[in-house]
């Protein structure tokens, strides 16, 4: 399981090209083609009140986008990766999902929110919708972010995403898939931190012996994950913690200097997820690190 074909949608926000550059190292992990995509929101060119459709404006936007993408294509070609351009008009999220299906991509790249206030979330509602509905993995790239840590404001540049991924597992099937994907990072990852958090909900009310049993079982599973990665030639280390899952994952990733977080998304309880947000979504929203979500 590897990322051979990637869908790279963009709104040409600042640092979009840097974000693209940061994923080019996936070439070493099997990347062959990037589909550069721009969706012209229909409301930008259509339904002019009592006017109709601004065909000229659509053409102008297409031309402007094509020129920008051609410049990007040179950088992509220099890395020996193929690329193609898709510029379409429509409702961005369904259109992106349709293109992802048509192009049979292995990964979709999503950017972070335009402006990030300190202490606020890094992803917007569109990205969350994309995450909820996508059947292929999504990497929320977050090239440059500002965040507060122990009272200090820190600016972080996430330009080497794959050097030290933290794989947060809950032993689910998507986590298993995430493990297989991380196995393909052999050439680009220095080490992988395999992490499991014994959630508060699980540990609450349990006696010590039961907790010890869960801890022991978790450690064994973590070791097995690490062994599998090591077998694939990747340095892996286990980390076991307990507490609130999302904040713990963010804390561990920060303290162990992870370069990105990799997680599975189960989408088990859509109702609960809609109102409260799943752990993976909360991590994606709150962590300053890029997050790779595997459905």
């Amino acid at each position, binding site marked *: 399981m590897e990322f051979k074909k990637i869908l790279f949608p963009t709104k040409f926000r600042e640092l979009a090209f840097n974000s693209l550059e940061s994923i080019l190292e996936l070439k070493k992990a099997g990347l062959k083609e990037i589909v550069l995509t721009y969706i012209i929101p*229909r*409301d930008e*060119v*259509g*339904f*002019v*009140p*009592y*006017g*109709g*459709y*601004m*065909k000229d*404006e*659509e053409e102008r936007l297409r031309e402007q986008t094509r020129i920008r993408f051609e410049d990007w294509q040179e950088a992509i070609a220099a890395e020996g990766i193929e690329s193609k351009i898709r510029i379409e*008009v*429509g*409702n961005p999220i*369904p259109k992106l999902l349709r293109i992802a299906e048509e192009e049979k991509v292995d990964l979709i790249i999503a950017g972070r929110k335009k402006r990030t206030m300190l202490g606020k979330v890094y992803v917007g509602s569109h990205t969350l919708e994309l995450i909820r509905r996508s059947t292929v993995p999504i990497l929320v790239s977050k090239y440059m972010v500002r965040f507060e840590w122990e009272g200090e404001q820190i600016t972080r540049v996430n330009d080497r995403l794959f050097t030290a991924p933290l794989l947060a597992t809950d032993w689910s099937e998507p986590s298993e898939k995430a493990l297989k994907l991380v196995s393909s990072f052999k050439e680009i990852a220095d080490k992988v931190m395999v992490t499991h958090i014994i959630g508060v909900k699980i540990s609450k009310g349990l006696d010590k012996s039961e907790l010890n049993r869960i801890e022991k079982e978790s450690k064994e599973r973590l070791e097995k994950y690490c062994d599998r990665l090591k077998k694939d030639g990747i340095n892996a280390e286990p980390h076991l913690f307990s507490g609130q899952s999302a904040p713990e994952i963010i804390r561990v990733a920060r303290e162990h200097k992870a370069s990105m977080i990799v997680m599975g998304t189960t989408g088990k309880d859509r109702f609960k997820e809609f109102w409260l947000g799943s752990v993976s979504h909360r991590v994606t929203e709150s962590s300053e690190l890029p997050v790779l979500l595997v459905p």
Partner: protein
Amino acid sequence: MRLEKWITIIFLLSIVAFLVPAIASDHSVAATHDTEHVSTHGAGHASAETGHGNVHASAESHGHRDEGHGGGHGDHINLGEVLPLWSCIPFACMLFSIALFPLLAPKFWHHHFGKVSAFWAACIGIPFVIAYKSVAVHEILHIILADYVPFIVLLWALFTISGGIVLKGTLRGTPIVNTIIILIGTVLASWMGTTGAAMLLIRPFLKANDYRKNKTFMVVFFIFLVANIGGSLTPLGDPPLFLGFLHGVSFFWTMKIMPHMLVTAGILLTIYFILDTYHYKKEGLTSAPVEEGKKEPLKLVGLHNFIFLGGVVGSVLISGIVDWGEVNTLGIHRAVQDWARDGFLILMGTLSLLTTSKMIYEDNEFSWFPIIEVAYLFIGIFVTMVPCLLILKAGLKGELGFLIAAVKEPVHYFWVTGTLSGFLDNAPTYLTFFNTALGAFYPGMPEAQAVPLLMTETSIYLKAISAGAVFFGAFSYIGNAPNFMVRSIAEEGGTSMPSFFGYILKYSLVFLLPTFVVVTLIFF
């Protein structure tokens, strides 16, 4: 000079221009009356006492049972008789903005139409309120609560519910199939609104004709029939008729337009069929085109939305029959059944949203943008038209008496309402001439008494106004809101559409004008 400066100057001038005569009028009135009654709605069984200084607003409004829209009674001064003609300028500017901005500055208009609407509304609203205080506030609130709110709620409900229905499957656009699609759309338009029917059918219609070379005339005839003429049979069909319903025209009275509609639709459908057959043969498509891929059977998805559509029809119908009394909202008396109808329509739309799969909306390429545009623009239209309507209601005593004197015969009403509807939106135009007729035939009579008479003893005039407003809405892209939506969708799909003038010169003048002449000869 920068645009902002021009805007500021226009705005300040409008305030000054409004205040000077208003103050002068105030002084002369104050000299003769200690307590002045400014009657804007005539007599009523409930008065909204909003005394400011020595001005009383004896006003009453309650939806289509409003008995107040009349004129002067006894010693009361009718606002429509004292308002100057130029108080209608912001209304004209609002309508001309809608007509000209999309042509001259589409990009600016697309991004700033809301501000333009707010600007013209403020140009009349602020000085009007300063000059006539509580009476003006009452008038503005009245038009918002009694006309704008139900108007937008109905459009929203129909737009939302019809957006949840999608026609799927493989259709081959032969002349017969195309004519049937347009015919179905024409029939549906009166029951799900011209916007709803047009949005339901335009994408399947375009898809069915993907393989055809000349699709332009097809879309134009689609606009003629589905987006306009088809909506002439019920108040749900076209916004002007719903405004008539809100002012007391009964639900089924509109069916009296059926003969006019049948003649118009019959002529246009026949012409369409001949044209389509001609082009079909010219394109060498006498045999069925080769199907690419698998043929999908036709099916309507989101069928449960027809239940909500039934709910919309039922609630509008019932609100015109029952009498559950009145309720005072912000000093405006509205019938309880009107509020109940609006609430029920919101419920229907909400239930449709909650029960319809997101995929259906996506298949329909559904967007809220068009309805938001209509909401923004129509608040401007409704606020700016307040003085104009008051003047018209004053009949010959108002500054627009010359218009009332000039428009006398049914044929005048049909063509004047129609011509203006073709180039200005047809909803406000309908209301303008509806009031012109009331002012001409029943000056000073409360609306609740005058409208039934207009529906019976002078019904030919109401037919002329109704048919003129709905039919001529097809005359240009700006005549009716669905026209531009259909055009937008067709152009996005790659169908080349004529320019604003091309549409009028190549199609409206050639096909619509002679058809309307026939309608005139037969009915007016």
